[in-house]
């Protein structure tokens, strides 16, 4: 396997220009929504609203305002986290989702049959259906560009280097330096999300620097794998089956009272 590659996204320098979002759509030739009609979200200055099968990068605007002049904007360019232990790979029944030589996670569109298990399995709500292909789609970390030594389109386009691309070990060192810098400047809320290989889902190959709790950014605090529920849920079913089987044996088996009733009608008690 080649070196593990990924993104480090420093949300503190994101200016919300959406160059990454546009670069992603254009490189991957992702179709417009609603035939390109302008759409307003009505809940934010952000009109894309969420990641989807046709939007593989999405810049979230978190508008934290008490009054018109009192508050702050948080910007975060969201994308597939390329989990080291990926929930989507776990649940896919066709084997469409693979881990590449760059330790990234890619959905093979020619294998996917659109069952949507991966959508329910991703702890971050990243995957969705692409209505044109009829398959589940998401960021590939520009597998095609990486295979020929190019940088992914989004990080290439990012004017502030909020999105940094490179070998994971390198990125972790850079993130640690930046975290310490922010903390020494008094930004005590600064924290890394997904940078710890010992952390949830084995760490994220696309990890973040945040300046508030993960939930504020729409991220789960403890992402988990779907398989955590397999043993308990299966055990519950087995217990249910055993109890039902016992109830069935008691209520459905032959009874003496039936024998009596049957012989009164002149039938044979036991054939």
């Amino acid at each position, binding site marked *: 396997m080649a070196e593990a590659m990924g993104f480090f996204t420093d949300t503190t320098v994101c200016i919300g220009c959406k160059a990454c979002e546009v670069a992603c759509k254009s490189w991957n030739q992702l179709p417009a929504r609603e035939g390109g009609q302008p759409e307003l979200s009505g809940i934010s200055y952000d009109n894309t609203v969420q*990641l989807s099968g046709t939007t593989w990068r999405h810049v979230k605007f978190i508008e934290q305002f008490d009054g018109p002049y009192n508050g702050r904007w948080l910007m975060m360019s969201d994308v597939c986290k390329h989990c080291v232990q990926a929930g989507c790979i776990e649940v896919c029944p066709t084997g469409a989702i693979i881990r590449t030589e760059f330790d990234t996670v890619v959905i093979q569109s020619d294998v996917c049959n659109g069952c949507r*298990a991966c959508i*329910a399995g991703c702890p971050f*709500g990243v995957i969705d*259906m692409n209505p044109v292909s009829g398959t589940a789609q998401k960021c590939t970390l520009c597998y095609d560009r990486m295979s020929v030594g190019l940088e992914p389109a989004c990080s290439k386009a990012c004017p502030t280097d909020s999105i940094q691309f490179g070998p994971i070990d390198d990125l972790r060192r850079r993130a640690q330096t930046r975290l310490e810098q922010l903390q020494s400047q008094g930004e005590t809320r600064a924290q890394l999300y997904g940078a710890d290989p010992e952390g949830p889902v084995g760490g994220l190959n696309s990890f973040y620097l945040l300046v508030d709790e993960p939930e504020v950014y729409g991220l789960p605090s403890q992402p988990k794998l779907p398989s955590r529920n397999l043993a308990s849920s299966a055990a519950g079913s087995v217990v249910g089956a055993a109890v039902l089987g016992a*109830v069935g044996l008691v209520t459905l*088996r032959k009874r003496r009272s039936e024998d009596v009733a049957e012989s009164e009608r002149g*039938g044979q008690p036991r054939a």
Partner: protein
Amino acid sequence: MGGSRVPDTFFTTPPEWTWWIIFYFFIGGIAGGSFFIASLLYLFGRPSDRPVVRLGYYVAFVGVVISGILLILDLHRPLRFWHMLIESNTGNLMFKSWTPMSIGSWGLLLFGLFAALAALSAAREEERVRWGPGFVVGRGFRTVVAIIGGILGFFLAGYTGVLLSVSNRPVWADSPMLGALFLISAASTAAATLILLGRRRDAVDAASLGKLAEFDKWALILELVAIVVFLVTLGAAVQVFLSVWGVLLVLGVIGAGILLPLAIGMGWVKRWSTKPATAAVLVLVGGFLLRVVTLLSSEQVHIAGHRVISP
């Protein structure tokens, strides 16, 4: 807006498993349940129960065929349904023992095979058909089909709940009880189906129907217990039911689908107590609503921007 109180499962995207899947869970449950009830009656019941056994096998066979069609229709690329069974790019068998949808695909296929064999055997017994190998009416063959098919029936009835739980979606992944709950509900709805269909067939013994009603009563009591445990184990995710879905759960699933038929079965409702068919219809309605409520309550929750939108 204390962010930390939002359960982690709320930060995910709904898979849009809606009406095809709701009908599949309902019909697949009846198919699996009918088969295991028929197996129990065949293995431990009386010869006079045979008409119900045959009926159970027919229901299982028709149900599994409909189930397969519903599942294929739900795929966004239906012609690739076989990718669940065979790796499309290598031709090897596709099987993941840790993925309920993968196990379920094979389980459904195997169950379909046994349901077909059992239905053929039943049709030969009644002389509705005359073709097929003679051994299908043999005693040993039937016993083997009843045992293996019965186990697969339990599997089909329960794996759907496990499939929902092995995810990161609200409600589904928040409780380990869905597998057991769907299994028990499959038993009650299957018994209700057999009661309703059995009443119309002359060959069916009244004593067999009485046993089914008795079985159904206990299944409903178990179902009530399972729903309570399910709600308790949900933890913070139970807030999803502080909505129209909670109302439907309490009034539709528990009230109309469990308590009312139980009361009729016990003879407490004087006006209706002579009509076991009324109770059976209510059980079916309740079982259907259970699938509607568990699927759609979760489907309502999604993220928009950084906000969680829930009912």
